[in-house]
């Protein structure tokens, strides 16, 4: 397998030409010497000189000998063992835990050799443990299932990365498939391009267990008003058993707020119970929902669920400006009067350009600050020419800089020729009206929800998507539509007029606030027109209360200093990323604020947090919680020694709930990982098949060595010897 390579610096034919030319010169020279030479001497001299030139040329060509060596090496098999907490469970009917089962099958000698030993015959076996991280196993016998999360995707990606460039014949993935964090394991398996042999641990049928699987509650509630809490209970193996579900406020007394009992029935899937409480104080309140436990439950860790609710005292303030008395106003006014959480100020324009005197405040807000006491503003059927320019710019400022929200509620004066589409408020509208106003279409239609509209809090009149669609279909039709040209980029359409294929309800963020546009009127028919069909005004009221609440919630985040965590609930080994926003009184971002921040742990100790500026008034920090419980972060921003503002946020560290949420063996996932990667799936008792099913890839490693031939003393000596001999002969013949 050896061969010789020549230098690439000049081609061989150059060497040949040089050789021929030198040959010719040498012969010519030796035939025309001053003293005559006999034939023998001449030939010897010519030969010596040519040889010397030839050797030098040979060196210049840099000939190297390339030597190839082939060796055969064992390829690797990576064995990944899940050590997350779900592996510490013992399935029903089993005495040993899942992790102990795994240890047993890997090391027990079936016949002569254990699985690991038989693998070692053909492969290099590398053992890893994984949960949220992946590390090599030091001692298999002392492996414990303590990981708080399971990230199968990361386990695959990281080990494949570590062994990049090395032969890997396969990955043996031993897990219950309870993937609950990180990247999609199926994608990782696809990218890995290594066959993955998955080994399922545990039982596919649901273990006997009762759990609080979900809690639905509004994150913001109003003091002294009922706060409904929807709790989903999952159970298996306890049908007919009566359990009690309790809602407790996690104050010093853990006082019970509500409770109910439920007869378990696993055939129903999740069972929903409705609890409620009436928050009595302002601030962030922690609640706990718990379901009574039963004997022999798989785990009791999933029988409680904690959450925070922000309780606010003030009602939402709405300013409703209407161009003329109309039924839209009448019925909306009545709906607002029935909503205890909304306080509305009305301005109805008169023909003379003033406002009807029966409603406070009777005048348009005088200053931007007066304006910012409102959360939401509604502009009814009113022409922009009714307002002074500075009033229009105050409306724009209210949205853009104060985080207020504005609703445009149809009418030909506001959408038609000379309407807002031609005013300075044109920019804030989510729908492009065009130059001469929207086209007014008098034809009955039922708005149809878009995909976003199905689930958006504004248009979600029922939590059941099918029911929601039915509700919208059955609402009394809208009889007048304003057809815009198109939707602005960045705007979201919630409902549309399908006959016209144009948006009916759409919103967009403008600066800090939101702008919602309803491209029609006669929404009051949803209230009054529903009665002849056996309906009532509840959907009309729900629509409006949902709309006002959602738009106002945008504003509650518009404090000058705000602090948030990305999630409300973390597990112990997750990093909590905390973000603070700082704005000045004009709501411009402050990039040179000094931020003092502290985190209070469940043990009531405090620690300082150091925030760093990212951009545009956004500051972040990370924090690793060490114990379960509630944490509170207080942030205070200063600039040049002056306080800008303070705020706080809370989050819960609730470890292991995720691990115990779905505890049965996730066989479909493991099968798919095996399929997509070209491996196969086995149950744990079939693990003995593994050593023979992994394809043994004979791996030949070729190593090459190069050696220069000319680069040694003999070549030099040869050249010197040739030239010296030639010189000696010439001396003797008297040619020197």
């Amino acid at each position, binding site marked *: 397998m050896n061969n010789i390579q020549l230098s690439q610096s000049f081609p061989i034919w150059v060497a040949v030409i040089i050789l021929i030319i030198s040959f010719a010169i040498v012969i010519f020279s030796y035939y025309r010497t001053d003293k005559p030479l006999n034939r023998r001497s001449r030939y010897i001299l010519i030969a010596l000189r040519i040889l010397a030139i030839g050797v030098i040329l040979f060196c210049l060509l840099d000939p190297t000998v390339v030597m190839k060596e082939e060796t055969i090496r064992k390829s690797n098999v990576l064995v990944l063992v899940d050590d997350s907490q779900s592996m510490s469970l013992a399935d029903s009917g089993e005495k040993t835990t899942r992790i102990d089962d795994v240890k047993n099958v890997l090391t027990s000698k079936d016949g002569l050799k254990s699985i690991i030993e038989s693998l070692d015959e053909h492969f290099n076996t590398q053992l890893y443990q994984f949960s949220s991280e992946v590390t090599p196993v030091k001692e298999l016998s002392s492996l414990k299932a303590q990981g708080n999360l399971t990230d199968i995707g990361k386990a695959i990606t990281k080990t494949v990365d570590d062994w990049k460039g090395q032969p890997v014949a396969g990955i043996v993935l031993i897990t219950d498939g309870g993937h609950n964090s990180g990247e999609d394991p199926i994608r990782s398996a696809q990218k890995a391009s290594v066959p993955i042999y998955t080994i399922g641990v545990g039982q596919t049928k649901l273990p006997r267990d009762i759990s609080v699987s979900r809690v639905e509650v509004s994150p913001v509630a109003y003091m002294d008003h009922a706060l409904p809490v929807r709790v989903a209970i999952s159970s298996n193996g306890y049908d007919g058993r009566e359990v009690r579900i309790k809602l407790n406020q996690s104050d010093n007394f853990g006082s019970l707020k509500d409770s109910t009992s439920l007869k378990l029935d696993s055939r129903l899937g999740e069972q929903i119970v409705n609890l409620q409480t009436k928050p009595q104080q302002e601030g962030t309140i922690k609640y706990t929902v718990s379901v009574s436990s039963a004997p022999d439950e798989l785990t009791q860790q999933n029988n409680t669920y904690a959450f925070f609710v922000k309780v606010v005292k003030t009602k939402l303030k709405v300013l409703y400006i209407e161009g003329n*008395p109309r039924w839209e106003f*009448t019925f909306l006014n009545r709906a607002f009067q029935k909503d205890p959480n909304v306080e509305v100020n009305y301005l109805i324009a008169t023909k003379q350009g003033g406002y009807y005197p029966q409603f406070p405040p009777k005048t348009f807000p005088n200053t931007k600050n007066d304006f910012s006491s409102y959360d939401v503003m509604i502009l009814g059927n009113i022409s922009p020419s009714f307002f002074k320019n500075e009033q229009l710019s105050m409306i724009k400022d209210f949205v853009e800089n104060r985080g207020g929200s504005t609703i445009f509620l149809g009418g030909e004066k506001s959408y038609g020729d000379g309407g807002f589409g031609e005013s300075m408020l044109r920019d804030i509208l989510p729908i492009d009206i065009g130059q001469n106003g929207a086209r007014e279409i008098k034809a009955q239609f039922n708005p149809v929800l878009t995909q976003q509209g199905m689930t958006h809090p504004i248009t979600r009149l029922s939590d059941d998507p099918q029911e929601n669609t039915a509700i919208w279909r059955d609402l009394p039709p809208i009889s007048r539509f304003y057809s815009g040209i198109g939707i602005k980029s960045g705007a979201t359409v919630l409902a549309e007029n399908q006959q016209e294929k144009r948006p009916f309800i759409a919103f967009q963020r403008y600066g800090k606030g939101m702008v919602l546009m309803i491209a029609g009127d006669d929404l009051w028919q949803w209230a009054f*027109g529903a009665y002849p069909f056996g309906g009532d005004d509840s959907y009309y009221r729900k629509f409006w209360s949902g709309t006002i609440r959602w738009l106002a919630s945008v504003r509650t985040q518009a404090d000058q200093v705000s602090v948030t965590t990305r999630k409300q609930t973390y597990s112990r080994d997750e990093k909590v990323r905390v973000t603070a926003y700082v704005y000045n009184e004009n709501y411009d971002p402050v990039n040179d604020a000094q931020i003092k921040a502290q985190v209070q742990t469940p043990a009531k100790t405090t620690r300082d947090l150091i925030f760093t500026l990212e951009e545009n008034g956004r500051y972040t920090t990370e924090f690793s919680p060490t114990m379960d419980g509630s944490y509170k972060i207080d942030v205070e921003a200063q600039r040049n020694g002056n306080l800008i503002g303070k705020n706080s946020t809370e989050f819960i560290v609730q470890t292991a709930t995720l691990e115990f949420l779905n505890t049965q063996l996730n066989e479909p996932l493991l099968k798919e990982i095996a399929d997509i990667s070209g491996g196969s799936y086995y149950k744990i008792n079939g693990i003995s098949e593994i050593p023979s099913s992994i394809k043994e890839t004979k791996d030949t490693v070729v190593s090459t060595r190069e050696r220069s031939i000319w680069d040694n003393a003999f070549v030099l000596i040869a050249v010197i010897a040739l030239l010296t001999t030639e010189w000696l002969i010439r001396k003797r013949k008297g040619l020197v």
Partner: protein
Amino acid sequence: MMNTINIHTPPDPSQEGSSMIIPLSLSLIIPPLLKGGRGDLKAILRNCIHLIICCLFIAISAIPSQAQDDKITIARLKYGGGGDWYVGQTQIINLLKGLRERTNVDSATKQEVVQLTDKRLYSYPFIYMTGHGNVSFTEDEVKALRLYLTRGGFLWANDDYGMDKSFRREMKRVFPEKDLVEVPFDHKLYHSYYDLPNGLPKIHEHDNKPPKGYAIFYEGRMVVFYDYESDIGDGLEDAQVYNDPPEKREQALRMAINLVIYVLTN
């Protein structure tokens, strides 16, 4: 400010409904012409006759769709019994005109007629009834009226003379638990647009009794207003009908406008 009277004539929008007919007729005229073409004169003639009949139908059926017009209108209640529910055909039209001219209420030019059992009732949150004689509702109408009023509807009853006894009897059937109570002069109703410090004006003299405004309130909202011994409706008629003096007619119109504005804003 509120007492200035602006006289200006708004554009007449009464022709709006007919615009629908043109595209519809075109869509009907073209297919038969294509089908029956090729010089067959008889067929074209037949199709044209069909077409004319169709157009007539559409024209007729387009009339009720005017009710869906979003302009504010008032529906006259057609009730059973011996009463002349139809009396005073210019009353509502003049009130709507007054609203249009003096306020910025975008009112229609026509009145509507509705029965309590009609589903269209819920297109009109404000209905008007008047008459001289015996008002009587069927059992269904009583139920329908109660539903209508408690769910957001409003009834203005104008005693043209002689309706009092039967009206009170029928209202007791609708609201057995409620009485018609007199509306005090300082009530918002008398100050909603024009200031009427003396309450309900006296328009037409019958029995030398003082005019009284009564109302039924349901959950705090006025659902029925009943003017007794005043006959506001009389004063809303065209001037030549009863020869009421201009100042009486002005008072009647102001009272009626106040009532509409009050209902719209409460």
